């Protein structure tokens, strides 16, 4: 977070100051890239670059503080993901590269879970969430958006977002409990 420096940085960015854009990029790039990675974007690095280019182009239309700016950037990232999905370039959400998504053999599941690292476990659990729950939780956790901001980003009501995040958290807890995923 840029904190109290944000207004000055934003104004400098509006005038084209490269140092300001560097500060903005370094503040948000990791989160944007993580959000895109969690969604299994085809080329998350390239898509991150496109997101920031869009931010540069549309900055003249933005008004607000740092929280709104962060939410705005993630809305752009979310829309970029949707565009990529429409183009069909998005990698299908299967778990074949890392392992089978559904394993009927309970012993096999246990073996795989034990062998996997904590990071892999996190990603697998996210992958297995229904898309809407995944969208909400990633925007809330990685994007650090409020319920209202998430609702605006995905075009749903605040009540729907709250319900989705509760279901998502419940699903994750159940998985952690039942499968003993190491973290």
């Amino acid at each position, binding site marked *: 977070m840029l904190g109290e420096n944000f207004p000055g940085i934003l104004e400098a960015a509006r005038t084209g100051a490269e140092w300001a*854009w560097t500060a903005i*990029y370094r503040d948000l790039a990791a989160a944007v890239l993580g959000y895109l990675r969690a969604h299994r974007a085809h080329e998350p690095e390239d898509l*991150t670059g496109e997101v920031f280019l869009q931010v540069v182009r549309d900055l003249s239309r933005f008004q607000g503080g740092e929280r709104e700016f962060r939410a705005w950037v993630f809305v752009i990232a979310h829309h970029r993901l949707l565009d990529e999905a429409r183009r069909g370039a998005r990698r299908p959400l299967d778990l074949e590269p890392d392992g089978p998504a559904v394993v009927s053999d309970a012993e096999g599941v246990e073996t795989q879970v034990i062998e996997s690292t904590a*990071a892999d476990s996190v*990603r697998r659990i996210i992958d297995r969430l229904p898309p809407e729950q995944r969208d909400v939780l990633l925007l809330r956790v*990685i994007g650090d958006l409020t319920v209202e901001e998430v609702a605006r980003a995905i075009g749903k009501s605040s009540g729907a977002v709250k319900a989705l995040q509760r279901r998502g958290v419940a*699903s994750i807890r159940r*998985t952690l*409990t039942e499968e003993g995923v190491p973290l």
Partner: protein
Amino acid sequence: MNAPGANEDEMRFFTKLTERELAGILAGSATSGGLEDVATFFREMRIDLEEAPSASVESRHLAGIFEEVRHLQPPAAEPLTTAATGSRRLRTPFRLLAGRATFAAIGLAVLAAFGGAAYAGVLPTPVQDKVAGIARHVGLSLPDKHHKSRKHGGGAGSGVQHTTTLDQRPATNLGADNGTQGNDQSHGTQDGSQSNEQGSGTEGPGQGQGTGAQDNGQSNGVQGTGSRRTGGEGGQTNGDQGAKTTTDVVPTESGQGAQNAPPTPSKGSSADGSQYGDGAGNDN
């Protein structure tokens, strides 16, 4: 994961959670209520996913951002950074090249127009002579006022090219003036039949063009009009030759007649008759 038969008790449990408690879980800070493992999961998720881009990716992204910023900023507000100066330096040679290309294009256009005029022989006499002289040095043959009669002054048969000796017109215009030329050539040198032949040569499609009036006026004017149907053979013979040299000349009935006609010796006084014509090469 979120199976239809999800534990209702579990869902009821989460429904009872306040938004603040849920936000704490998502932030990875829950420490009680049996939700520590879930909070840990979200904390790990944030750590795992929020990985900064590599240095190379970051530099590539920043370069793209800076380029886009420069592209969007108006020139007056463009900061005088090293990169911006570099971009101006890059643009300068292109501007110079564009200026040179413009000059070159203008020069080529002038050259083409001037050359075309010189080739057509419509330049003022002194200029035309000079240009023709220069062109001769490089092996090009351009109409020359002084050398015109030698080059184009054909016999009566050429029909097309002789008029230039009288009216100073270039050979290229001759195709339209066929009717008149024939008359000119026959002027005073041949009988009416010759002059008429040449005149008849122009009776072909679109050749008459009424231009005979010009040359006839200069020569004798009468022959052109009176001789068209009575065209003699000699002139026609030459008319064939003339047609070869001029694109405007279309074979006419006189041309056909010329094949049958015996060649008529030139009675003309034109020194240029030697080139084309056997016939009434009698320009002046």
